[in-house]
């Protein structure tokens, strides 16, 4: 096939390169519009996510306080029980009956974050649904 054949075929089809520019421009315009619309939506979602995260700041701070207090109370109670305090021993036993065990070493925070049936904070681990310990 020679150049003459190609020119001939273009002439036959009746479409010149210059004539393709208008539809190409229109398609480019449409693609740009679509992408711009999508980007605006994604940027709006970005703002919303940032707002959600900033709204979680206060509850998360409270959650950390609760975790640290529970860890301190549980470890303190365990310590007293180990030292022979009868009341603390009773509370530890009641917790064990409820399926809550106190470990001396605090467990990782993220490790049990997604286990609602086995919640664990600091030195406290539960193998049963969480229930407050009752006073013996």
């Amino acid at each position, binding site marked *: 096939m020679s150049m003459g054949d190609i020119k001939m075929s273009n002439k036959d089809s009746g479409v010149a390169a210059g004539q393709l520019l208008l539809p190409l421009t229109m398609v480019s315009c449409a693609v740009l519009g679509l992408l711009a619309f999508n980007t605006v939506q994604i*940027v709006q979602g970005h703002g919303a996510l940032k707002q959600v995260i900033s709204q979680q700041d206060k509850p998360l701070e409270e959650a950390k306080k609760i975790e640290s207090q529970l860890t301190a*109370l549980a470890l303190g109670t365990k310590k007293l029980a180990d030292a022979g305090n009868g009341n603390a021993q009773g509370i530890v036993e009641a917790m064990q009956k409820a399926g809550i065990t106190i470990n001396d070493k605090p467990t990782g925070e993220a490790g049990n974050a997604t286990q609602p049936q086995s919640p664990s904070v600091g030195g406290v681990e539960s193998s049963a649904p969480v229930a407050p310990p009752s006073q013996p």
Partner: protein
Amino acid sequence: MCEKILYWASTTLGVLSLAVLVTNVSVDSMNRKLQDEANQRQAAIMKANNMGQVNQGLAQALAEAAVKKSDGEIRSLLKSQGITLADAADAKKKP
């Protein structure tokens, strides 16, 4: 002349499309990371809600032991966590 304008218009639109596409992909990637972070924080908050029940029960049990059985060690443990208890005698005096 018209062809030249169309050529530059389509070229400009193509370049703009590429730029917007890059922005789109990068912001979307950032959004996914933010979503993961939000999910993790939400899970931590939910976990703390469960722990709050245990914390409340434990603090209550300790407080009862401290007040009813006059356990000074448990009282000081509670005090170390900012939980102060009124004396049993004071509690009886108050209606």
